[in-house]
């Protein structure tokens, strides 16, 4: 059972996060003070740390820097109200693996925790996941909710490009370019055919589209 450390000085938020994560099946330890967090993280064997930045005694960034300086590589997701780009950059530079701004959706937080756990479990480096869909590029395996899904070569290439650029639009021209590379020529509706096949296999809402922009896969960042 994965163990989580939640560092949050707001009692109401901390207890709600703890209960919600416990309902998801995690073992959760909650701490409100920076020095306590550092001590617990140093001795305890946690799978993921959720770290607030504005804690008493010792700020979240100092805790994080100290952990990394001590060689502790536990994945850290910063959960904070500070949303400036330079604050995000400072957090990630200090060694955080992810950065979430409050008020955070608990479902999204759970997805981010799962993502960190998967990465920790030694998932192949060229494996990607968006929502329930995962793609192992080197193994040419696609899966939906863990169930393998059979794809043609063209569908796989289209899906791989969409997932590489998840949460951004990929133009039809770029998708065609990806296919040209393999076949040297494509019929005019090849991309549309591949997209509709992928929608059939992964759900209609998995791939979003906008006229003039192209196609996009998205959902909580993972």
């Amino acid at each position, binding site marked *: 059972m994965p163990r989580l450390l939640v560092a949050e000085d707001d009692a109401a938020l901390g207890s*709600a996060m703890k209960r919600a994560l416990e309902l998801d099946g995690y073992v959760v330890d909650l701490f409100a003070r920076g020095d306590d967090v550092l001590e617990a993280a140093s001795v305890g064997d946690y799978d993921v740390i959720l770290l607030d930045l504005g804690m008493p005694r010792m700020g979240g960034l100092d805790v994080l820097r100290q952990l990394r300086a001590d060689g502790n590589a536990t994945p850290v997701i910063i959960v904070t109200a500070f949303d400036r780009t330079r604050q995000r950059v400072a957090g990630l530079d200090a060694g955080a693996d992810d950065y979430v701004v409050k008020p955070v959706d608990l479902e999204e937080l759970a997805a981010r925790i799962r993502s960190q756990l998967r990465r920790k479990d030694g998932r192949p480096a060229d494996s990607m996941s968006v929502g329930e869909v995962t793609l192992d590029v080197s193994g040419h395996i696609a899966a939906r909710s863990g169930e393998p899904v059979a794809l043609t070569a063209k569908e796989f290439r289209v899906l791989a490009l969409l997932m590489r650029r998840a949460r951004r639009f990929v133009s039809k021209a770029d998708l065609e370019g990806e296919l040209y590379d393999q076949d040297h020529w494509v019929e005019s509706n090849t991309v549309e055919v591949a997209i509709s096949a992928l929608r059939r296999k992964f759900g209609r809402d998995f791939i979003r589209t906008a006229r003039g922009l192209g196609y996009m896969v998205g959902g909580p960042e993972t």
Partner: protein
Amino acid sequence: MRRSSLSIRLYRRVLILLALTGLGMGAILYVVANREIGRASDAQLVNASRLLYMMMQDDLTAGVLVARGKDQTLDEGDDPLLSSQERKAFHASYDWCMFAVFWDGKPVAQSGWGAPVSLVPRQPGLHDFKAVGDRWRSYGLPGRDPRLLVVVAERDAMREFSMVPVLRKLALPLILLIAASMVVLWWTLRKSLSEVERLATTLNARSLADLTPLARGDWSRDLGPLIVALNKLFVRLDQAYELEQAFTDDVAHELRTPLAAIRAQAQLLRKTSPVPQQEEAGRLLAVVDRAGDLIDGMLTLARLNATSVSTRSVDVHALVADVVAETLLRLPPDAMEFSVNPDHIVRWRCDPSSLQIALSAVIGNATVHARQGGQVDIAVVRSSDRLTITVGDRGCGVDAADRERLLRRFERGTANGPGSGLGLSIAVKAMTLAGGTIRLEDRQDGPGLLVVLSLPAVAD
């Protein structure tokens, strides 16, 4: 009250000073000239009396004079002292001078015009006297025999220096000179004050966030105190900006943390409660999210105050694509359709971050207020001097009378409608920062609101 122009005031004062100086100089010149003319005239009187005395020398015998002095009758015709030639010669040289010759205080010869002999002073030297309504000046020259006195006199009016003919001659060159000096003076003044205009131009060209001090060396010493004061103001503004930034960060933290707690509790409630309470928790979540949006909007607005603008060549199509992607991911699947025209790169020189904030606010506004229309059409149109981005929805549109109001802060289409009421005011502020404009129109191709974002071309 607006103070009158510094240069005009200075100009006026310098002109008054010049006029006073000119008048003073004129008065002094007039007095000095009159005194000199008086002195020269006196010298002429002396000369005239000497000439007369010399002419009479031949005929001067005491006896004759005594005899003439005694009988008291003076007849010009047979005056033995001055022949008619001698009289003519005297008048040819000094036609404005009268004379009288006295022997032992009695008149023995006279010019025959001018002041009555009885009024002429009978003393040697210079004297003033009044006669026949005029002021006169006389000089009495004693002869070798002290009983003889030759007196020559002239009217004061002859001696006075009149400015009128001088002025008449000088009028045209003087007017030209005065006009030329007024022009030169004005030009010099403007030229000296152009430094102030340069300072104004420099300050105007600055972006809101540019608070770097002005270099002392770039400005003349006269502007030194002004430059120092401006630099001090810049430092104070910079500190105020820093404080404001820190304050918004604090506000963000203090508001978001309890909101996050409420949201987490509500989500937990929805997850763990029986179905009827789940719906209530869902409604609570929606309210919390609206409060979250409001805080985000206020922070965006507050931070736009301190945003620095940096213009560069931007792919506006890609920027629109990112904003649409972000918007789409926040919406439930199939909630709205988006279209963007054209489907390729459109480059334009602008500040990408403020344009993105504006677009995000406008498109976000369409997803809140025109969700039921189900469609957002975005067009990017580039002309030689202007980039226009239109965002059209299929909502119920906005009455022409409400359009101005809707662009202001906390103004909503309907009193209890969705949204924070900040979206369009954020867009207005961001577009202003980007140097552009925003306006609301009716869609021409059917119902719906068309938001027009317009950016002028800027030089490289």
